[in-house]
């Protein structure tokens, strides 16, 4: 019994230790020295993390929008309320599916890439040699990626929602025969910029922060071996995904109930 308590205590301490290290990585990367000289690095990372994720985001967004329209129509048509399809799909996408799914996709595609990259740099002693030359790898490698993730995530989430709504409109209006006017009108009436769209954006900003932070930390902290990198990459995807979903619950709770 006592030994179980002890190991629980040790485990909690190690979790705190990890959080502390991760926190200090984030702190040192973001709050030190002017970032302007590193702007080209940030731009390059926005390309790597954001631009290269556009394809998967657009494809997924379109598909999910189309599916939502299909399923939504099937349900609504039973009550004669298919004109509300536009509203329903838009709300679901903008508030939930858009930010959450794009964050999950981002974690899988961009997050794992970042972890692998930084892990590889650590394993091949590039981070060490950078330090020896006198450059802080947190400033040069970690910080640009954090900023890039922070900026790219909301943009990707917005794109997801827009493409999703478009996909839904193609399915709902052009295929299933919902009146085009009603589709858009109910949507415009019911979707409020401040309460819905903006809150969705806040969510995706939070997700971007969390996912990129986890990705960067896992890479930075990995065991410098090839198995270590593989394990770290897996951890990034798993931890980020869980974090996004749990965070989504709490954010939704705070934003939409209070």
């Amino acid at each position, binding site marked *: 019994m006592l030994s179980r308590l002890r190991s629980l205590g040790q485990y909690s301490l190690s979790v705190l230790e990890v959080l502390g290290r991760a926190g200090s990585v984030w702190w040192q990367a973001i709050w030190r020295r002017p970032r302007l000289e590193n702007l*080209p690095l940030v*731009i*390059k990372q*926005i*390309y790597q993390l*954001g*631009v290269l994720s*556009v394809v998967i985001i657009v494809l997924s967004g379109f598909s999910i929008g189309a599916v939502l329209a299909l399923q939504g129509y099937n349900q609504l048509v039973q*009550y*004669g*309320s298919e*004109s*509300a399809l536009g509203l329903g799909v*838009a709300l679901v996408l*903008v508030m939930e599916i858009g930010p959450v799914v794009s964050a999950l996709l981002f974690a899988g595609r961009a997050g794992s890439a970042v972890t692998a990259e930084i892990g590889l740099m650590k394993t091949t002693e590039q981070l060490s040699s950078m330090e020896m030359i006198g450059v802080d790898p947190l400033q040069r490698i970690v910080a640009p990626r954090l900023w890039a993730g922070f*900026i*790219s995530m*909301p*943009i*990707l989430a*917005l*794109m997801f*929602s*827009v493409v999703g*709504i478009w996909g839904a409109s193609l399915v709902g209006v052009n295929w299933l025969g919902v009146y085009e006017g009603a589709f*858009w009108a109910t*949507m*415009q*009436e019911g*979707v*409020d*910029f401040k*309460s*819905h*769209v903006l809150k969705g*954006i806040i969510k995706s900003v939070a997700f971007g922060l969390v996912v990129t932070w986890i990705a960067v930390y896992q890479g930075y902290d990995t065991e410098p071996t090839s198995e270590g990198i593989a394990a770290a990459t897996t951890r990034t995807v798993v931890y980020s995904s869980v974090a996004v979903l749990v965070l989504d619950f709490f954010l939704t709770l705070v934003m939409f109930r209070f």
Partner: protein
Amino acid sequence: MQMRTIEIVVGAFMLAGIISLAILAVRVSGFNVGTSTGTYAVYAKFENIGGLVVRSKVTIAGVTVGQVSEIKLDNETFMAVVKMDIDGSVTDLSTDSTAAILTEGLLGGKYIGISIGADERILGDGDQIYDTQSAVVLEELIGQFLMKQF
């Protein structure tokens, strides 16, 4: 890849983000009521507001002219006091106008429909509409129907 190309592509990416935001703002959420001309407050008391909520729309002849901004309970008369933000461009609400709580479609979204009266005097900021019609509550309707049967 050349740095210049990357910069251009990233710029396009961010532009796409801004455009998406704009689309969502305008096309999807119909970002309009009360933003340009300001609003003024009009009050109305109801016996039963049904499912009316804050942000429900306020219409005249079916056209949206404002939204509900506050719902409170009057502790003396135990009636619901609804505050509506009416768009500044709507200036001829006569003092004998009627405010009724109506239902939208079958899904039951409640909204307020205002019918203009004949009085020359018009409502200003903070004035109240006295002629009101409460929401139709299904149970009461059934109750009335049953009563009539006997």
